[in-house]
């Protein structure tokens, strides 16, 4: 029996993970944190095995108070870190504090924490570099998107991922980094979801890359396996569905409009300004040209993870916000 701390518990993935951990008889207690107030968070029935706290992880003092307060009292053994800023257009030091500094604080404190022995970081496939001279099937040793010209959304994720990787073997805490395929669901920060979830999607003329997409259910399975596993390392977490971008658009009910790249970028910027849509062509420029499919061999062999949940493609068009 062990206790688990879940940061970012109010995100769709976090919420589903908390629900799953509570149902797991191997888990003694779940300590969930988020930025929302308690009355607005986790809209499902509470049990005595769940504690929710509103914590701003951008402030290192709050992280310290969390880890050496409630987390120590509940004898938390494993931290599942899901908290990251999801909007691709936001930037600045406060975003960086949330995406990178919060993780750094957790890593620093976990090293000298009396009960925490394991940290699971949910990273993203966006950390991988996509280029015509790189393979489509991506293993964990694939080059990362280290280009300083990348938007902060990507730079922060790469830095957080590397921050965790560089601590492996150097601290007492076991560190597991899961580089997850995008979950096609609202609120997950998925750029592909933002791309598809529009009546018309603009894509580069003449290109149709292969994409791999996951479901929240599969990502939660992977996070649970990593929570209960032993040892450390980096693992790709692919989704069940691998298909061309055009097929994804067809399945989603989105009309694809092929255009030249130089036109697409400003049009998406205008769309963002007009509608608040979060899809950024700058982040996805290469992904719209060349395929990227995560190779989940290591996750299968070490964690026992295989994607089992295909995307439930919406019939009849995009998901509207109120749904």
């Amino acid at each position, binding site marked *: 029996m062990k206790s688990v701390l879940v940061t970012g518990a109010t995100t769709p993935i976090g919420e589903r993970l908390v629900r799953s951990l509570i149902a797991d008889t191997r888990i003694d207690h779940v300590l969930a944190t988020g930025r929302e107030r308690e009355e607005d968070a986790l809209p499902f029935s509470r049990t005595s095995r769940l504690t929710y706290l509103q914590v701003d992880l951008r402030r290192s003092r709050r992280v310290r108070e969390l880890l050496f307060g409630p987390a120590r009292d509940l004898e938390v053994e494993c931290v599942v870190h899901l908290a990251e800023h999801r909007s691709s257009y936001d930037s600045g030091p406060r975003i960086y504090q949330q995406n990178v500094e919060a993780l750094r604080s957790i890593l620093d404190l976990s090293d000298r924490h009396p009960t925490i022995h394991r940290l699971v970081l949910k990273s993203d496939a966006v950390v991988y570099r996509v280029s015509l001279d790189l393979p489509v099937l991506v293993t964990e040793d694939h080059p990362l998107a280290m280009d300083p010209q990348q938007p902060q959304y990507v730079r922060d994720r790469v830095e957080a991922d590397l921050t965790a990787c560089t601590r492996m073997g150097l601290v007492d805490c076991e560190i597991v980094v899961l580089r997850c395929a995008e979950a096609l669901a609202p609120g997950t920060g998925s750029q592909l979801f933002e791309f598809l979830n529009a009546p018309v999607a603009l894509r580069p003329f003449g290109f*149709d890359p292969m994409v791999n997409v996951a479901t929240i259910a599969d990502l939660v399975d992977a996070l649970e396996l990593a929570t209960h596993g032993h040892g450390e390392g980096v693992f790709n977490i692919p989704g069940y*569905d*691998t298909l061309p971008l055009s*097929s994804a658009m067809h399945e989603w009910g989105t009309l694809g409009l092929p255009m030249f790249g130089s036109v697409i970028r400003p049009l998406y910027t205008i769309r963002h300004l007009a509608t608040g849509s979060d899809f950024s062509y700058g982040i996805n420029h290469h992904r719209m040209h060349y395929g990227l499919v995560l190779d989940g061999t290591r996750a299968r062999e070490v964690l026992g993870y295989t994607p089992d949940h295909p995307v439930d493609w919406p019939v009849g068009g995009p998901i509207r916000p109120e749904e």
Partner: protein
Amino acid sequence: MPFPPAVAHALARVLGKSDVQDRVDRLEFHDTGHGFDLFGMNPEFIGLADAMSAPMYERYFRVASHGPEHIPAHGAGILAANHSGTLPFDGAMLWMDVLRHTNPPRVPRPVADYFVVSLPIVSTLFARCGVVGGTRGNARSLLEQGELLMIFPEGTPGIGKPFRDRYKLQDWRKGHCELAIRHRAPVIPVGIVGAEEQMPQIARIPVPGSPIPYMPIPATLVPLPVKYHIHYGEPLRFDEEFEPEDADDPEVVRSAALRVKEAVQALLDRGLREREGIFR
């Protein structure tokens, strides 16, 4: 993609004979669940390419296949062939020849230069027909899946060789032998006779800022109706001589690549001796 698989299927039925659909139905294919393999290959597009290339294969280039029994029926393998002809009709004819002379039909996976992957429309259509970008990772994945790679070790310099250098193999790259040794895959040498005379190149114009390495200026607007002779040699089983870790030894790889090159050159020399003329 330019059009969906259903359209490719309909076009293949209109353009092709009944044997095209039969081959499509019997294809060995690693479907990822949506009708495509990991690299975007789709059987309906294979059928369309088969149907569209058939007139060229059967009537224009009148391809004659010699020794196709050397093509492995199953499992990983690497076809290593000479490359020539200004435009890659040799690749298309070899692709067709393997598809038609294997049972069940195998789609050889051509490994293309990087610039091909960057070409709009072409990259997508080629991917649907099994072409992959020439990265080590892509080749490794395909061999691990037991696929048959089609590699032209001369690369772009081969296809652009001057007419005076026809049937003289250019600088022979070695990556295919490293892959063969590491993944215990046989290398099947292939000599393509005919293609080297199909479209004599008289000049090439550099295209700065373009993914294409140069714009070839051929002496003819369309390829000449040369007769193709495709000669397959005995598979070279490097796995019987070397261990996978020997792929790290540059000398082993170099000597293996030299043997493949000599085998291809021998097939070319034999093919040139045996043919009765450029058009026969």
